[in-house]
C-alpha cells in the first residue's frame, strides 16, 4: 500500500494536479452554496470534462468537487439560512442564530474546521479499513434499512422543533405527501392527478429550496429591516476557531465524523441523515442541551463534521464492491467505468496507483477547501450586510433557476412557490420545515424497505426481532423516542412542584 501511496503522492504533488484540484474545489464550493445545484449534479456535469483527461486527473477533479460541494452548502446555510442541499439543513439550526448574533465568521470557521476533520477521518477510514467496512455494509438488508429510516424519522422530529408536538405534525405531514407518486411495487400511480411530473413523487430539491430559501426570501422581503442582522449587533471578524472553541467542540467533531463515516457506508442512507443523527447525539451529550438551536457552535460542528464524513464513507462500498452508497457515488462509478476502471477488489490491486491517487486527492481536497474557506470567510460574511431589497430578489431568482435546472421542468417551479409560501407560514406559526424534507427522503425509503422485508419474510414480523442488527436498531429507536419524552415529563414535574 505504501509504495502505491508514494507513487500516487508523486503524481498528486505536481502543479498541474494542484491546478485541477484548486479548480474542482472552487467549483464545488459554488455548486454547494447555490440552491438546487447538488453534489450529484456537480460531479455529473464534470464527467464529460474528464473524457479528455488522464483518469487520475479526472478523478482528482471529481473528488475535489464532491468534497467541497458538501462543505459549500454550509456557507449559505449559516449566513442566510438557505441550505444549498439537504446535507446542511441541520447546520442552519445553530449556524443562522450565530450569524444573527454577529458571529457569522466564527460559525463559518467552526463549520470549515468540522468539515475538514470529518472529511479527513472518513478518508483515513477509506484508506485503511475499507474492505472491513464494506463487509459491515453488506450486513444491512431490507429490514435494517427500514429501521434506519424509522430511527432517522424519530430523531428528526425531536431535533428540529422546540415543541415535540409541532415536530410530529410537520413530520407526519411530510410522510403524507411522501406517499405521492408511483407505487414501485405495484406500478399504481398514487395522488398524481394525471400529472406525469408527480409520478416520481414530490421532488425533494424544489421542496427543500421552497421551504428554506424561498420562504427566507419572502420573510426578508416582508420584514421592515434593511439588513438580515439587527443594526446594533457588533461583528467579530475572527474566523479561525480559538483554542477555547476547539476544546469545546473537538469531541463533537470526532464523534460526528465517526457517525458520518458509518452512515456513509450504508447504501441508501445519506448526508442529511448523518448530520441529523450527529446533531441529536451532540445535543444529548451536551451539558446544556437548551442552548442548541440558539447559536451553539457544537450544533454547527456536529452537522458539518458528519455530512463531510459521509464523503469518504460513501466511497467505501463504491470502490470495494462497485455498489454506490448514494447518488453522487453512482455517478462516480460511471466516471470510473468510462476510463475502463471497474470498481471492485481489482481497483485496489490492478489499478492501485489510480485508486490511491483518488484517495490522496480526497485528503488534498479537504485541505484545499479548508484553506479557501478560512481565507475567504471574511468576504463570504459580507453577504449578510447586503441590503434586504437586493438580497430577497437575488435569493428568489436563484431559487427559481435552481429548482428548474434539476429536471428542466417548469412544474417544479410551481412546486417551489407552493413550498415557499408553506415554509413562510410554518415558520410564522413556529413549525420547523426540516421534518417535511427529511420525511420526503426517509418516507419512501421506510415504505419500500418495510414492504420488501415483508415479501422476503412471507408477511411475518418475527424476523425483525431475530436478526441481531435489526434488534439493535430497534433498541436505539425505542431509546431515542423515550429519552426526550422522559425529559419533557421530568421538566413539567419540576415546573409543577416548583
Amino acid at each position, binding site marked *: 500500500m505504501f509504495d502505491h501511496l508514494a507513487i500516487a503522492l508523486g503524481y498528486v504533488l505536481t502543479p*498541474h494536479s494542484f491546478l485541477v484540484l484548486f479548480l474542482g474545489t472552487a467549483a464545488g464550493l459554488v455548486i454547494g452554496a447555490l440552491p438546487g445545484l447538488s453534489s450529484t449534479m456537480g460531479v455529473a456535469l464534470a464527467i464529460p470534462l474528464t473524457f479528455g483527461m488522464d483518469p487520475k486527473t479526472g478523478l482528482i477533479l471529481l473528488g475535489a468537487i464532491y468534497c467541497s460541494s458538501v462543505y459549500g452548502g454550509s456557507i449559505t446555510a449559516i449566513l442566510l439560512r438557505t441550505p444549498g442541499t439537504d446535507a446542511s439543513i441541520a447546520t442552519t439550526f445553530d449556524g443562522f442564530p450565530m450569524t444573527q448574533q454577529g458571529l457569522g465568521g466564527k460559525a463559518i470557521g467552526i463549520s470549515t474546521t468540522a468539515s475538514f476533520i470529518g472529511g479527513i477521518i472518513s478518508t483515513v477510514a477509506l484508506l485503511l479499513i475499507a474492505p472491513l467496512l464494506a463487509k459491515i455494509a453488506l450486513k444491512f438488508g431490507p429490514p435494517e434499512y427500514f429501521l434506519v429510516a424509522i430511527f432517522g424519522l424519530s430523531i428528526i422530529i425531536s431535533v428540529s422543533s422546540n415543541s415535540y408536538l409541532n415536530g410530529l405534525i410537520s413530520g407526519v405531514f411530510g410522510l403524507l405527501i411522501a406517499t405521492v407518486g408511483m407505487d414501485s411495487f405495484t406500478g399504481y400511480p398514487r395522488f398524481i392527478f394525471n400529472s406525469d411530473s408527480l*409520478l*416520481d413523487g414530490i421532488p425533494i430539491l424544489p421542496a427543500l429550496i421552497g421551504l428554506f430559501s424561498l420562504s427566507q426570501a419572502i420573510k426578508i422581503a416582508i420584514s421592515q429591516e434593511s439588513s438580515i442582522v439587527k443594526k446594533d449587533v457588533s461583528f467579530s471578524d475572527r474566523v479561525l476557531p480559538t483554542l477555547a472553541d476547539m476544546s469545546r467542540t473537538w469531541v463533537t467533531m470526532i464523534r460526528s465524523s465517526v457517525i458520518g463515516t458509518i452512515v456513509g457506508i450504508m*447504501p441508501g442512507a445519506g448526508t442529511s441523515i448523518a448530520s441529523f443523527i450527529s446533531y441529536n447525539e451532540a445535543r444529548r451529550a451536551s451539558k446544556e442541551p437548551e442552548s442548541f438551536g440558539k447559536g451553539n457552535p457544537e450544533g454547527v460542528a456536529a452537522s458539518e463534521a458528519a455530512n463531510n464524513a459521509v464523503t469518504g464513507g460513501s466511497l467505501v462500498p463504491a470502490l470495494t*464492491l462497485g455498489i454506490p452508497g448514494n447518488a453522487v457515488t453512482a*455517478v462516480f462509478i460511471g466516471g470510473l467505468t468510462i476510463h475502463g476502471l471497474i470498481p471492485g477488489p481489482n481497483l485496489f490491486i490492478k489499478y492501485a496507483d489510480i485508486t490511491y491517487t483518488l484517495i490522496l486527492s480526497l485528503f488534498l481536497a479537504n485541505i484545499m477547501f479548508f484553506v479557501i474557506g478560512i481565507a475567504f470567510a471574511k468576504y463570504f460574511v459580507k453577504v449578510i450586510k447586503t441590503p434586504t431589497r437586493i438580497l430577497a430578489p437575488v435569493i428568489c431568482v436563484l431559487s427559481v433557476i435552481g429548482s428548474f435546472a434539476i429536471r428542466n421542468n417548469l412544474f417544479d417551479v410551481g412546486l417551489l412557490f407552493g413550498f415557499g409560501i408553506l415554509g413562510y407560514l410554518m415558520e410564522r406559526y413556529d413549525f420547523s420545515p426540516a421534518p417535511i424534507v427529511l420525511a420526503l427522503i426517509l418516507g419512501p425509503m421506510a415504505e419500500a424497505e418495510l414492504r420488501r422485508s415483508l415479501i*422476503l419474510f412471507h408477511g411475518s414480523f418475527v424476523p425483525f426481532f431475530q436478526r441481531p442488527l435489526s434488534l439493535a436498531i430497534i433498541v436505539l429507536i425505542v431509546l431515542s423516542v423515550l429519552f426526550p419524552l422522559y425529559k419533557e415529563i421530568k421538566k413539567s414535574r419540576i415546573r409543577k412542584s416548583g
Partner: protein
Amino acid sequence: MSRTRKFCMITMMALVCLALALGTSFAGEYPSKAVTMVVAYAPGGSTDTLARITAKYLEAELGQPFVVVNKDGSGGDIGFTALAKAKTDGYTIGLINVSPVVVNPITRPKVVRYRITDFAPIANVVTDPGIICVGADSPYKTLQDLIDDAKKNPGKISISHEGKGGGDHLGILAFEKEAGITLNGVPFDGDAPAKAALMGGHIDAMAVNVSEVADMIQSGQLRGLAVENSKRSPEVADLPTFPELGFTVLQASSRGFAAPKDMAKEQLEVLINAMTKIANDPTYLAELKKLNMPLDFMAGDDYGKFLLEQHEFWKGLWEADPWIKK
C-alpha cells in the same frame, strides 16, 4: 498531461469554437446549429453515458455540437414525452429505451401523453440481455440447482427485479411458467441496492441485465446462471443461454436514438447515415466495449419495425394478464 496532448486539446477547443462560428454561416445545410439530445434518465446512468459518448462522435461527424439535456423521472415518461412533443425542426433528438418507452403508454394510457408512433426511429445502438445470477457462495451452481430447490420449496426462493412490469420481472414470469416453479419476486429500486442485498445474502437470486453485473461475475463477486438471449454474451462467454438449457426465456433492454415523428425526411437521413458511420468506427466500438454495452445496431425502418413488434408483444402480454392491479 503531456505537452502534445495539451496542444491537441487546445486545438480541438479552438476548432469547436470555429465550427460554432462557421456553422451559422452555412444556412440550409443540416445541421447548421447545435442539436439538443434529450435523455430521459439522470446524469451518470448508463443511458446518459451512452448519450454523451455518442454525442461526441456525432459532433465530430456532423460538425455541430450535440447537447445532452437530462429530463429524467417517471420511469422515463418525462423525457420521452418531451422528445415526442418537441419541435420538428430537426434540432431535438433523444434516446428511447425499450421496454419502458413501449410499455409505459400501454399500462398508463391516461397519464402518458405520447404513443410509440410519435417517434421517428433513427437507430438502435445497444441491446443488453437479461441474466439470472446468484451470490458467489450460493448453493446454486447451475440453473438446474435453482429449479430443483424451487420445486422442493415453492415460493421460498427470493429473486430481485427492478419493479413489476419491467423487463427483469417479465423474464422471471416467463421462467417460472416454463420451469413450472414459483419464486418470491422482490422489487428493488435500482440494481445497486439489489446487488448489495444479494452479496449480503439477504436475497437468493437476482434478475438483471448483463452489462450491470458482467464485471462482478468476471471478478467472482457474483455467479451468473443463464443469459436470457439466443446467443451467448461475449462478456460472460462461459454462461449458457436459456435456449441452450431448453427454455425460450428471451428478454433484453435496448437503447437507441429517435426524433419527433414529423421531422423532415432529409434531416432524418443525415442522422441515420451519421449513426451508421459511427457504429462502424472501431474507437466507438471500443468505448462501448469498455462499458460492457453490447452493440446491436438497427437503423431507420429496421428499428421502427422492431419498436412496433415490441409494442405488439407487450400489448398482448398486458391484455392477457395486466400486472398492475387497479
